[in-house]
């Protein structure tokens, strides 16, 4: 299975810049870039109010489930999910094959505005990921600093 490219500090900075601009344009509360496997890659905005790790896992699951449902009704043009709430709403849009952009916004904020600005933001994020991919497509990562000789008690049970 193909994967995301390596992201270096410059990439993360650019991604955060995109998210910051998106929040400014839309008055949304929080924006997240998540992997379709459920990992949180980057986030910006109010990151204390919400459990972003869990939101990333559930949002990717919900998006993938909805995409599967769309396929079952022969809908091939599926790229976003909108969850309408009374306090906060959420908009999830596909960035590329591997990533999703999730935007959390107050109910008073217009979803139209969020959708309008999310599209170019998702495109910019995809381009940045593409840039990272082209920089060094086969790049590996030296993890030799990890000493895995003794992980027997990596997780310890409380006594």
């Amino acid at each position: 299975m193909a994967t995301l490219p390596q992201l270096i500090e410059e990439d993360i900075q650019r991604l955060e810049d995109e998210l910051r601009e998106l929040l400014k344009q839309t008055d949304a509360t929080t924006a997240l870039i998540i992997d379709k496997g459920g990992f949180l890659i980057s986030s910006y905005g109010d990151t204390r109010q919400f459990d972003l790790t869990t939101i990333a896992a559930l949002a990717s699951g919900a998006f993938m489930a909805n995409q599967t449902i769309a396929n079952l009704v022969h809908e091939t043009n599926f790229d976003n999910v909108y969850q309408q709430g009374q306090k906060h709403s959420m908009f999830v849009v596909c960035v590329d094959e591997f990533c999703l952009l999730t935007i959390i916004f107050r109910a008073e904020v217009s979803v139209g505005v969020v959708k309008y600005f999310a599209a170019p933001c998702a495109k910019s994020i995809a381009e940045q990921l593409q840039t990272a991919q082209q920089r060094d497509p086969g790049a590996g990562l030296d993890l030799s600093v990890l000493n895995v000789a003794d992980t027997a008690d990596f997780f310890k049970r409380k006594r």
Partner: protein
Amino acid sequence: MAIINQATKELQVKIVYYGPAMGGKTTNLVQVHDHVQTTAGNKGKLVSLATSSDRTLFFDFLPIEAMSINGFKTKFQLYTVPGQVIYNTTRQLVLRGVDGIVFVADSQYEKMTENVESFTNLEENLKSLKLNLSDIPYVIQYNKRDLPNVAPVEYMEFLLNNREVQVPSFTSSAHKCEGVFETLNMITRMLLHKFVSQSTPQYA
């Protein structure tokens, strides 16, 4: 696949607990959640998307941050799949991006067919994601060993671990938290070994 983020020095890994219905997958996560030693804030909430009768509907999810190794924060995301046969599409969704698998088998004699079917189903679902079980670290856990009608471990090994390369297996009574941490620590060790030894890790 795991996320290795060079910018933030984080390693994020996804482990999926797979197996037949009512085999003890959710119980494993509950026990890890209840008994794991962590520093404050390193254990997330256990999220269960379950039916009113506590059967897993979509998945259970438990994020845990383990110790930092030479500056790398290691974050583990533990998932279960719904075991019931009808939820196969859901199992495929949860398997997406998997790094390691714990196959939780039910040791009761009458569950052997379900164990084998579930194992075969795992291989098929991985194939649908263009993955091969032999390329993914996995361990087998023979659960419910405290029940009276259990099959011998040797027999279960023959049924589920009878391959060219045998994988580590553990006996357990998950509801007593026996064998739960041994299993989790082994899959963790295998995963970290894989990341260190592979020449081109997945992505960061």
